[in-house]
């Protein structure tokens, strides 16, 4: 395990410790930090947005200063250092492979073994006189506090869920209030997740459009190009509406959509988009679609939106694996049937018209 490089943009100096100089980090974020986080939110360089693992200093810590632990996803690291403005603390960064604290803990990368190995490799007992390390609360699924204590002598103290509460937590004698311990899912946290959801859906939209292009053309070989283009348009409209419903409206309107299951919420959002689409087309073009074509749109949009909404379970903060399995056992067969019926209706409509 090497030491973190001094040649990282947020390093503003060096602080002496018992085991050598440690990089000191800025507590102010620069434009590049905000742009980096923004890019990640748009799925650019998302899995490689990292800082070097190892020990850093904030302010001028000494042997009595608190030791805070975080992961090496740069956005997490930035949140922590910004929260520590004006403080003197040691910041120990674990190698979580660029993944945020909670997900890394769930997968074991932010785990007991990594923490113990890191405490040993930086020789923490030589650097501080006390025997406490402060961890983000959401690292709990990966860390067995009592085993860390057995193996290193350091007592794990779980800090608040949010980095912004760290100063209050420290001033409060390393005690978190009940509010600091709760993970909610407010609208601001849901909105920032939308771009990645949409970008990851694009490949499905293109796939559906391509399949509808082929199906349209091959079912009407006499008029291949016209029918293929009409097919691609249908596929594009229907799947884009499904994305708007499942990947945009579902996160946005989550608490207000009906049902507890995300597949249900996604279906409701898809239905909403379907109604808007058909109404808009009716106003603009008049009676253009047959009933069976409208049904084709209804089934494809609501099932696609239901599927995309169901996938948002993985981004949400309040779903359980048992619950997801339960809803999938019911929702996935319904989604499959709805897709088949929808495409059947569309193919049928093609022959009827």
């Amino acid at each position, binding site marked *: 395990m090497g030491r973190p490089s001094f040649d990282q943009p947020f390093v503003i100096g060096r602080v002496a410790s018992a085991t050598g100089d440690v990089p000191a980090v800025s507590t102010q974020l620069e434009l590049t930090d905000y742009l980096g986080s923004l890019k990640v939110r748009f799925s650019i360089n998302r*899995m490689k947005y990292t800082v070097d693992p190892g020990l850093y200093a904030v302010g001028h810590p000494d042997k009595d200063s608190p030791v805070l632990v975080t992961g090496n996803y740069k956005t997490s690291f930035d949140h922590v250092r910004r929260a520590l403005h004006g403080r003197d603390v040691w910041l120990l960064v674990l190698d979580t*492979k660029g*993944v945020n604290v909670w*997900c890394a*803990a*769930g*997968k*074991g*990368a932010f*785990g*007991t073994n990594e923490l113990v190995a890191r405490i040993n490799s930086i020789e923490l007992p030589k650097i501080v006189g006390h025997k406490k390390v402060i961890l983000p*609360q*959401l690292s*709990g*699924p*990966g*860390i*067995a*506090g*009592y085993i860390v204590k057995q193996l290193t002598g350091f007592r794990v103290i*779980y800090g608040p*869920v949010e980095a912004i509460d760290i100063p209050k937590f420290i001033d409060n004698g390393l005690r*978190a209030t*009940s509010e600091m*311990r*709760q*993970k*909610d*899912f*407010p609208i601001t946290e849901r909105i920032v997740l939308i771009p990645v959801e949409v970008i990851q859906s694009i490949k499905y939209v293109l796939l559906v459009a391509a399949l509808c292009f082929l199906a349209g053309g091959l079912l009407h070989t006499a008029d291949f190009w016209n029918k293929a283009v009409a097919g691609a348009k249908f596929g594009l409209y229907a799947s884009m509406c499904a994305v708007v419903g499942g990947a945009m409206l579902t996160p946005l309107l*989550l*608490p207000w959509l009906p049902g*507890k*299951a*995300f597949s249900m919420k996604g279906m409701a959002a898809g239905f909403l988009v379907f109604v808007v689409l058909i109404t808009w087309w009716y106003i603009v073009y008049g009676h253009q679609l047959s009933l069976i074509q409208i049904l084709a749109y209804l089934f494809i949009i609501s099932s696609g939106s239901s599927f995309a909404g*169901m*996938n948002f*379970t*993985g981004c*949400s*903060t*309040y*779903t*359980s*694996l*048992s*619950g*997801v*399995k*339960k*809803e*999938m056992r019911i929702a996935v067969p319904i989604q499959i049937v709805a897709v088949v019926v929808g495409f059947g209706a569309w193919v049928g409509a093609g022959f009827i018209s």
Partner: protein
Amino acid sequence: MQKLTYLKDVVTLSLNQEKCTSCGACLEVCPRNVLARNNGSVDVVDRDACIECGACALNCPFGAISVKAGVGCAMAVINSALGRKGSCCCNTDTKDYNMDKQPSSSCGC
């Protein structure tokens, strides 16, 4: 705003009162206020809020909590069903925290 909760009566969490010493380690790590201290002893007070993250069981020194821990993610369930491995958050390898034995938490990503 009220706490968002997921499906009712599905989670695998259970607390063995005989092994519990009311040390409170679980109360520190639960991000959903599922557990609380009642007249000195720890109790499950909001089961349906549990997300099966496994933090309480992993941090219980007495093996008093059992839960089938995993990620509540539909794509992970699909990836597991299709046998896909590799990328992070890709599958539903559950850690079965059973009283008595501690699981090895290995990472496949």
